[in-house]
């Protein structure tokens, strides 16, 4: 089994895009179902949500507020999953509820470990 990281990018800045409490409840439930389904196959290694607070550090001591500088989308969270192949990882990532929202995106990347060749 290989490990893959699923990185979720969301528009966290546009005010009009902010969901109502009922919508948030719906999204949270969808996350639960998605993550639960992966965990039920024993393929869930963990995941975290990220706060909008942060700094971006750049070359030459340049430092800016927030993870979002030029683009509206920013990383909102990630999960790590186990999969036999990239195709299988992508299939699991396709269930990510944020993909139902326009402008959102999910990136699937294989994690490289020194313990594997």
């Amino acid at each position, binding site marked *: 089994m290989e490990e893959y990281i699923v990185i979720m990018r969301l528009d966290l800045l546009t005010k009009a895009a902010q969901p109502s409490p009922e919508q948030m409840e719906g999204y*949270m439930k969808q996350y639960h179902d998605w993550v639960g389904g992966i965990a039920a196959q024993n393929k869930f290694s963990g995941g975290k949500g990220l706060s909008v607070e942060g700094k971006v550090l750049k070359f030459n001591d340049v430092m800016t507020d927030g993870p979002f500088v030029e683009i509206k989308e920013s990383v909102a969270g990630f999960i790590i999953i186990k999969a036999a192949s990239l195709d299988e990882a992508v299939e699991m990532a396709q269930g990510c509820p944020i993909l139902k929202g326009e402008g959102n995106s999910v990136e699937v990347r294989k994690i490289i470990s020194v313990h594997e060749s």
Partner: protein
Amino acid sequence: MLDHGPIIPHLFRTEYRKIVSVLCRHFGFREIEVAEDIASETFQAAMQAWGLEGLPPNPAGWLYNTAKNKAKNHLHRESVFRHKIAQELQNTTQQSDSAEVDLSLQNINDSQLQMMFAVCHPSVSHESQIGLSLRILCGFGIDEIASAFMTNKDVINKRLFRAKEKLREAKVAIEMPPASAIEARLEPVLKTIYLLFNEGYYSASQNNTLRKDLCLEAIRLCTMLIEHSETNKPKVNALLALMCFHASRFDARINDNGSAVLYDEQDSSLWNRDLISKGGYFLRMAGQGNELSKYHLEAGIAAWHTQQSDTAEKWEGILHLYNQLLQREYSPVAALNRTYAVAKVRGKEAAIAEAEKLQIPENHFYFALLGTLYTDIDDQKAMLHWQTSLSLAKTDSDKEAIRKKLRSEI
């Protein structure tokens, strides 16, 4: 907690306003938008983190901590900005630099009480006061406020924005009004609580838990005023008594299928005795002093309704109170209810004469009243009125109640 059903809307309803009030008191009213943004962001962070990792053991505590950290970061950024960049501007605004936001129960209560008065400041229109209260004190979504005012989101957003501008221009502080102004400032606060309760008690929403929550929120806000010696006035007690009496029937007025049960058909063993006796206590407290507000009169009427059986004394009492209430402030609902009391005291013929003098057009309650009054006197006319009532009713539960009545009359 989980038995409450959806947890985020529930917490939004109970915690959003606490976070906004505390932060706003900390930052100053000038920065109310910042307080609101931090509170909203806190909930978004919760959705994300709780979605991926599951709920924390103490969700409200998690929200407080997250909000506290966000506030700390905001203040830190602000102070860096002021010291490094804006020093030459000699900004004179007084802002608390203390990074530690106090989310203790005591401070939450004080902040909310002070926020109630700030939001209900005379510099903004009554309508805006109610809108702002629903948003900031009750955690209503813009959608819900829009539907309460039967308008759209844009109108509400603009109205709230303007109201906040006005409050800033008036340099409203989050503090208790001076003792001399309390009486006048209490009026809009009570009106808002009253409307909040009505929203929960009479709304057409099928979500019974949410509706009950609204009623309990109104009771809670009113209780907060009573617990504070400066605002513990007779009319505040009268309003609380009124809400306790009404709320006592909450479980009895909806059957297992979720449809409404009329007062006469309610199983009075389901009435909440505890709330009735609380209502009695606050009504007695309301009688200390020589003030007679409309809340006193309505509480008196509600008190009579906690006695289900008809007696001459009961309906004489109710009619008398409605007469006083209408003299003070006309409302179509009070006029209809008074006519019903007239029927009970002086008979249906007398009530029909009174009912036909009322100026209430196109209202299904009016025709339902006429239908009730004509029953056994002129059944054909009664039937016509019931059918008119049915055609005017808007909500499914109202229509169902009328159909049930129609079936029982045939």
